[in-house]
């Protein structure tokens, strides 16, 4: 830097310890950021293009991989779009199981975001705690699906596995433990006066601005807009489930943290409700059950493990377009799937919450201290691989 320049440019990432796989180009005057320009694409894998070269079924594990903390929701949104094209709806029990996994995953996803948010303002304890508590949810998901993060659990027409024996008791045990630890986390991190001092009034996003910028998820709800896809366009078992939408008016980093905490509490409630109200019945749609030979059908009903009919390998999907939208951990997630009647998608457009929140970087990180950059950035729970796809 020459002595004449008044400002310096800081490359906040991709090698910065708190940046993730992206960079923000900051223009800094002393300790104040004047301008921020996000530069993304470091983890772009071209999932939309790759999807055009895979069969409908092969796309399922792939779409999960753009956002590992939130795999179930990507899985679900894609399958909803696909089911609209196929013109089927999963049986009720499968819908409840989808909701179960989605909520377990939402807790894990929020804890992931909160942990990183904690370490961004210096609380390594918050980081370790959130990741430790997230482990409980991963264990539950593992019991349900057989995998820790990449579930590939939801398939067109249903889900792949019924709940294992004794699952409800396991869930109750883990949830109790989880709730107890959450109360300690609240004392240690969330209500910690230093945390409050660092986050309150930082990165304020007023309601009008939030609406204008079209942001999504906890960020939107922390600014006072009561918009939750689970409520406005209910999918899976949400029409039958009673839950509150977490809303805050302040719109600052702390409100976004609190909205996540509240949503975790609601998710726990939903998980309990799902396990209480879980209806009996098949977990795979009638149309595909019919295709299975009797031996396999018996196996499915006895073990609760779904066997795919052979048609799944090369499934042809009617011409048309399907839209699947879910409330993912980070916000509204939309899959726009266009089929031309072949066995591979003609075009798959994924509108991810992280990508839609990207616009906030240049809006919120302006006239703030350098120290506030991580406090704002990670309060958005921005996940670079999800935005880059």
């Amino acid at each position, binding site marked *: 830097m020459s002595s004449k320049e008044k400002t310096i440019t800081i490359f906040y990432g991709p090698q910065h310890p708190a940046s993730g796989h992206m960079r923000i180009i900051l223009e800094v005057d002393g300790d104040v950021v004047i301008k921020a320009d996000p530069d993304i694409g470091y983890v772009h894998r071209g999932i939309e293009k790759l999807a055009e070269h*895979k*069969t409908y*079924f*092969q*796309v*399922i*594990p*792939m779409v999960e991989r753009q956002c590992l903390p939130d795999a179930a929701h990507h899985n679900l949104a894609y399958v909803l779009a696909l089911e609209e094209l196929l013109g089927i709806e999963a049986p009720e029990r499968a819908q409840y199981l989808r909701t179960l996994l989605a909520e377990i995953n939402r807790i894990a996803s929020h804890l992931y975001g909160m942990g990183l948010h904690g370490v961004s303002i210096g609380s390594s*304890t918050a980081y370790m705690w959130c990741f*430790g508590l997230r*482990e409980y949810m991963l*264990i539950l998901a*593992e*019991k349900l699906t*057989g*995998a820790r993060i*990449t579930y*590939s659990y939801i398939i067109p027409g249903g889900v*792949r*596995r019924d709940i*294992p024996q004794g699952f409800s008791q396991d869930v109750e045990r883990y949830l109790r433990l989880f709730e107890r630890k959450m109360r*300690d986390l609240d*004392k*240690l*991190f969330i*209500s*910690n*006066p230093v945390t*409050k001092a660092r986050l309150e009034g930082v990165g304020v996003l007023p309601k009008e601005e939030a609406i204008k910028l079209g942001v999504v998820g906890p960020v939107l709800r922390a600014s006072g807009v009561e918009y939750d896809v689970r409520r406005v366009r209910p999918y899976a078992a949400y029409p039958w489930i009673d839950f509150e939408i977490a809303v805050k008016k302040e719109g600052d980093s702390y409100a976004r943290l609190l909205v996540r905490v509240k949503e975790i509490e609601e998710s726990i409630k939903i998980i309990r409700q799902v396990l209480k109200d879980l209806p009996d019945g098949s977990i795979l749609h009638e149309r595909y059950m019919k295709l299975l*030979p009797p031996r*396999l059908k018996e196996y499915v009903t006895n073990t609760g*493990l*779904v*066997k*795919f009919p*052979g048609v*799944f*390998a*090369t499934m042809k999907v009617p011409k048309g377009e399907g839209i699947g939208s879910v409330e993912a951990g980070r916000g509204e997630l939309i899959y726009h799937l266009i089929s031309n009647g072949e066995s591979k998608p003609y075009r798959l457009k994924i509108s991810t919450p992280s990508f839609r929140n990207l616009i906030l970087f240049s809006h919120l990180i302006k006239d703030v201290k350098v120290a506030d950059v991580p406090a704002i950035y990670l309060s958005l729970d921005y996940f670079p691989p999800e935005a880059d796809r």
Partner: protein
Amino acid sequence: MIDVVGHLKAIFTAVKYLFLRPITVKYPEERLKKPKNYRGVILLDMKKCIHCSLCARICPAAAIKMYKHKDGKLYPGLDYSRCIFCGFCIDICPSFALSHDKFHEVVTSNLKDMKVTPTQTLEFLRKNEERLKEIEPKIR
């Protein structure tokens, strides 16, 4: 004003945890018990295989390839450098020839060994399990 209660609560909670047991699992000496139906490595029972190659067709990572065996028939072989353990091949197998093992920590000394031909699947698992036995994990 200074939130004294908040400070004290935070400090006391931290002190409390000084005396509680850690939750860390000392991997690899200890490991968590894997649940039933865990999606680990994939085993092939060559007697049951009906050579339909559905597994290779559905494999999302193109990890499964069909190998021509001595008897002139096709059997699936798996490339673990690609496998993502989604278990689609197992679920689509109409004759239960493919199945999961709970074991999942696949390690080989070079990349070529990750490609497992149909006849090697069991041997591959055994080799890996032996490597683990050297550490003698405690299951928690």
